[in-house]
C-alpha cells in the first residue's frame, strides 16, 4: 500500500465513528431523549450539526434503503424514516461524540468550527433565496454549506500534529489552508470530504460541495451553481470572520472568479448580513438554552 492509499484508509476507517460536534451534543441529547420531541425541533437540532446531518443522510441513502433517488434533505429523511429512527440515530451519534470529544478537535477549536459551518449553510441558503432558487431546492444549499468542511474533521483528528502544522503554515504564509494540508498532511480537506461523501453515499451535489468548494469551476454543470454558492458563502464567512475553520486568508482572484461564475458583485452580498446574523443568533440561543437548563 502506498502512502496515499494508507492516508485514505486511515480516513475511511475513521469516517464511520466520526463523532457529533460537542457544541450541539447537549441539545441533541435533550431533544432526542424527550418523548415529546416535535419533528421541527428534531430537524432543527440535527441541522445544526454537520456530522449528525451527514449521518442521517447516510442512513437514508445507505444500501439498506437502496432508494432510487438520493436524498439531500433532512425534512424528507425525517418523514421517510420516522421520528424514532432518526432520534435513535441522533442519540447514538451524539453519545459517541460526547465520549470522543476530548480526543478530537485538537488544532481546530470546535465551537468556532461549528459557527463557521452554520454560517456557511445559512449564507448559502440565503444566497439561494436571493437568487430565486426554487424553495424546494434551498435546503440542499443549506446542507451543502453546512457540510462543506466535513473533510477537515478526520484530518484534524487522525493527523493532529501535521494538521496543527498545516494551520500554522497557512497562518504564517497568510495563504491557502488547502495547499498547506496537501504539503504537510498529504491529503486536503476537499479530498477527505469526497471520501466521506462517497462512503456515506451522500447525493452527488453534496459530495461536490464537500470536494470542490475551493474549485467550483470543476463541478459538473448541474451542480456548479450549488458548489459556487457554497464557495462564495465560505469566502463571505471567512472575510467576516464568523467562526473559524482555519482558512483565514481568502484569495481575491478566487473570490472574483466565483462572483463571475454566479454573475454577482460583492456588494450584492451586503443585504445578507442581517439574515445571516439573525439565523446564527437563533441557532446559538437554541443551543445555549440547553446549557443553562443542564447547568
Amino acid at each position, binding site marked *: 500500500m502506498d502512502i496515499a492509499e494508507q492516508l485514505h484508509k486511515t480516513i475511511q476507517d475513521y469516517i464511520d465513528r466520526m463523532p457529533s460536534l460537542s457544541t450541539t451534543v447537549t441539545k441533541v441529547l435533550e431533544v432526542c431523549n424527550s418523548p415529546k420531541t416535535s419533528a421541527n425541533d428534531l430537524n432543527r437540532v440535527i441541522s445544526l450539526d454537520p456530522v449528525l446531518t451527514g449521518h442521517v443522510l447516510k442512513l437514508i441513502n445507505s444500501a439498506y434503503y437502496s432508494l432510487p433517488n438520493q436524498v439531500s434533505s433532512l425534512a424528507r429523511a425525517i418523514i*421517510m424514516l420516522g421520528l424514532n429512527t432518526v432520534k435513535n440515530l441522533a442519540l447514538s451519534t451524539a453519545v459517541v461524540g460526547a465520549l470522543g470529544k476530548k480526543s478530537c478537535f485538537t488544532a481546530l477549536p470546535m465551537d468556532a468550527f461549528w459557527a463557521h459551518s452554520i454560517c456557511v449553510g445559512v449564507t448559502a441558503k440565503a444566497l439561494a433565496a436571493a437568487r430565486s432558487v426554487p424553495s*424546494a431546492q434551498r435546503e440542499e444549499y443549506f446542507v451543502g454549506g453546512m457540510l462543506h468542511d466535513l473533510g477537515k474533521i478526520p484530518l484534524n483528528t487522525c493527523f493532529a500534529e501535521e494538521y496543527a502544522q498545516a494551520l500554522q503554515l497557512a497562518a504564517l504564509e497568510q495563504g491557502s489552508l488547502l495547499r498547506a494540508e496537501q504539503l504537510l498532511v498529504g491529503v486536503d480537506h476537499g479530498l477527505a470530504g469526497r471520501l466521506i461523501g462517497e462512503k456515506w453515499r451522500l447525493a452527488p451535489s453534496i459530495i461536490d460541495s464537500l470536494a470542490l468548494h475551493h474549485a467550483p469551476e470543476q463541478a459538473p454543470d448541474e451542480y456548479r451553481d450549488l458548489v459556487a454558492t457554497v464557495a462564495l458563502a465560505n469566502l463571505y464567512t471567512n472575510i467576516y470572520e464568523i467562526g473559524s475553520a482555519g482558512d483565514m486568508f481568502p484569495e481575491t482572484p478566487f473570490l472574483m472568479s466565483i462572483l463571475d461564475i454566479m454573475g454577482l458583485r460583492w456588494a450584492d452580498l451586503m443585504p445578507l448580513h442581517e439574515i445571516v446574523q439573525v439565523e446564527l443568533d437563533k441557532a446559538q440561543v437554541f443551543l445555549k438554552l440547553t446549557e443553562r437548563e443542564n447547568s
Partner: protein
Amino acid sequence: MRVKFWGVRGSIPCPGPHTCKYGGNTACIEIRFDDLPRQIIIDAGSGLRELGNFMMGHDLPKGPITTSIYLSHTHWDHIMGFPFFTPIYIPSTRIEVFGPVSHERDTLETIVGGQMTYRYFPVRQAELAASISYANLKEGRFDLGDGIVLTTKYLNHPILCLGYRFEYQGKVLCTAYDTEPYQNLFCTDPNEPEYDELMAIEGETVAREQNEALEHFVTGADLLVHDAQYTAGEYAPSKVGWGHTPMETAIAVARRRQVKRLALFHHEPMRTDGQFDLLCQDYAQRGGEGGPEIFFAREGEEIIL
C-alpha cells in the same frame, strides 16, 4: 396460491375464551402452491408454532422440510414464534430467513437468533439442528424461481419494515403491515412559534409522495393483507405515530386501488370475538359496489387465489 392465516394478532399473543374465533396468535401467514412443491411463510409470530406442528405431521413424513420465511420486520411479535418452530430442531430441515434490518449493526441472524441465548431460552442458536441461512432484504423486485416474483416495499413503521407482493400465474398476494399512512410530521400552523414554511411544505410533499408509492404497491392485489389495528376513532386521539393503520384507511386504499379481497389484519390484542362480530357487520359492507370483499382475518382461515 393458497394463503393460510396461522396468526393474525398484533403486538402480543392473547389466548383466551374471548379470542377463540378470530385467534390469539401473532402474525404468521403461509403460502402454498397447488402445482409447486414450495412453501413460503410470511412472519414468525407465535402462529408459527402451530404451523410448525402441522408441518411436522404433514410435510416431514414426505421428506425433509425446506421453507423460506420472509419477515416483515424484527419487532418481537413478528419473530417470537421462531424458537418454537419445531422444524428448526430437525437436522434435515433447510430454512432461508429473509428480512429487513435497520441501521443498527446487528445482522438478521443476531436479531432473530438472539432470542435463543441462555438468557431467554434453554437452547442456543448454535445448537439448532436445521440448516438455517439469513439474508438481509431491501426494497426491490426479485425472481424467486418457478414463476414466482416478489416485490418488496418499505412501509411506515418505527423500525425498517417491508411489505411483500408475491405474484404467481397472474395472481397477486400483497401484505402491508405493520404500517401507517405517512404524514407531514412538521408543524403546519403559521401561528405556532416553531412553524417553518419550507419544512411544512416539504413534509406535505414527501408524505403525499410516499402514500402514493405505498398505494401503488398494493394496486390490483387479489388479496391484500393490510394493517387495520385500530378503528379511526381509536387511532386519531392517541395512536398516531405508532405505525398502524385505521381500518377506514385500509378500506379506502383497497377501494381506490382495485383490490379484490381485503383481509384486515394485525388485530388489536384487546379486541374480543364479540367486538369483531359487531365491527364485521359494519366494516365488511364498506367495499361498495364492485369494490373489494372485506373481512377480518381469522386464524386457521385459508384463502385460495
